[in-house]
């Protein structure tokens, strides 16, 4: 089997954000997949990955919650690969995989809870967890993607923002930093690669993995606003018209605190925020509506129209 084939049909774990605030990320991911001839099969009866909240209270319970998702995808749906577009979900599934490979106490808790819940216990190595960026890179690749671009993003200056959880902590991502073709921990580039193929001009952006303040957003909104405003200003200083995102927490944080910075601090920034799947969808010839750009708080429809894109 061609290695690409392994990724053409995968289990899909949207997680809670993609059913709520990040609906646009969910719909644009599904549409881009369809346009590229890829197939997603949603994990049946999936549950919360444990997010930040459970992990904070009981890290092993979070491992169990993520392991249940992995177990359904691997044991019940017989998939080799599960794709999670949300950085938080992706991170937690990877963490569970690591814990179950390295920590006997986690294995014990997961076995106990899985038995009690009445499903097969997930064992490390049964399934591969990937991000939406990995999915398109591995199942399609730049060469094939380029052939399908109908509406180049040429002239659009983009700052690619990956956030903190896509690469950290590095020990749960053993496949990264493995030489040519692999993703980089220090300087991630998969989103840059895909959007460059779609015609975008990627700007040099020093804060691509910097904290968006997501964890502070309820407890210390002022600090989150400062962190976000700084990211927005850095993107604008880099010459970017759009910040491309691949994490629903980062995305909604950037959008909400952009509004809040103007309201509370009187500082307005104009850079637009869009999911990379929305930009790819437009480049693949879809309408802005089909990839739900109208659902973004930071609506980039006008900018794309002015640029003659879509």
């Amino acid at each position, binding site marked *: 089997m061609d290695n690409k084939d392994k990724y053409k049909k995968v289990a899909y774990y949207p997680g809670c954000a993609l059913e709520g605030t990040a609906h646009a990320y969910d719909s644009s991911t599904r549409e881009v997949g369809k346009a590229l001839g890829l197939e997603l099969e949603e994990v049946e009866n999936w549950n919360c990955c444990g997010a*930040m*909240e459970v*992990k*904070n209270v009981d890290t092993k319970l979070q491992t169990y919650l993520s392991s249940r998702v992995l177990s359904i995808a691997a044991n019940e749906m017989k998939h080799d690969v599960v794709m999670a577009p949300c950085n938080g979900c992706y991170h937690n599934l990877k963490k569970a995989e690591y814990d179950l490979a390295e920590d006997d106490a986690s294995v014990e808790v997961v076995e106990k809870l899985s038995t009690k819940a009445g499903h097969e216990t997930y064992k490390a190595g049964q399934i591969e967890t990937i991000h939406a960026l990995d999915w398109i890179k591995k199942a399609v690749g730049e060469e094939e993607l380029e052939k399908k671009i109908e509406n180049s993003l040429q002239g659009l200056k983009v700052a690619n923002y990956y956030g*903190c*959880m896509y690469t*950290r*902590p*590095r020990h749960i991502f053993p496949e990264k930093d493995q030489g040519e073709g692999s993703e980089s921990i*220090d*300087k991630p580039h998969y989103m840059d690669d895909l959007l460059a193929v779609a015609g975008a001009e990627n700007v040099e952006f*020093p*804060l691509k*993995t*910097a*904290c968006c*303040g*997501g*964890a*502070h957003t309820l*407890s*210390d909104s002022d*600090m989150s606003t*400062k*962190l976000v405003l*700084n*990211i927005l*200003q*850095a993107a604008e*200083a*880099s010459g970017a018209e759009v910040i491309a995102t691949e994490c629903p927490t980062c995305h909604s944080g950037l959008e909400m605190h952009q509004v809040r910075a103007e309201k509370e601090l009187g500082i307005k920034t104009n850079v637009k925020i869009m999911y990379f799947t929305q930009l790819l969808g437009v480049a693949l010839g879809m309408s802005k509506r089909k990839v739900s750009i109208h659902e973004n708080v930071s609506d980039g429809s006008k900018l794309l129209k002015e640029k003659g894109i879509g």
Partner: protein
Amino acid sequence: MRSFEDIEQAIDAAQKSEEPISSAKVLLEAGEDVMEQWVSAHDGEPTQKEKEGFRLLALHRQGAKGEPSFNACRETCRELVYYYNLITLDKSHEDVAKRVVMMALVAKHLLYFVSGKMIENELGGFCCASKPLRANMN
């Protein structure tokens, strides 16, 4: 040891300065001072050593010991060093003013990130774990 407020003012002043080399030095020192705050708040003695030629990187390594979530600002420290090198190695470059602005924004992000981690009481050990350290700092 300078307070976060003083460091922020120094960053703002450096961003507006028209002397790129001195701005770069001020911004690098601002990064070091932010790291000193973190290390001191953890009852450590800020190192005077250098890593890869920069005290900032040695301070970051010191600050991340036993606190893995602190690696979330590792790249920010390295970006500061990157811009310092860009500016000081070619102060006449046509983009030097832009580089100073970028370095200031990176320095400010580091300041907000670290001070944010120190400001929240018992926020817990998830993600960017904030610790009740601010109260013991001054």
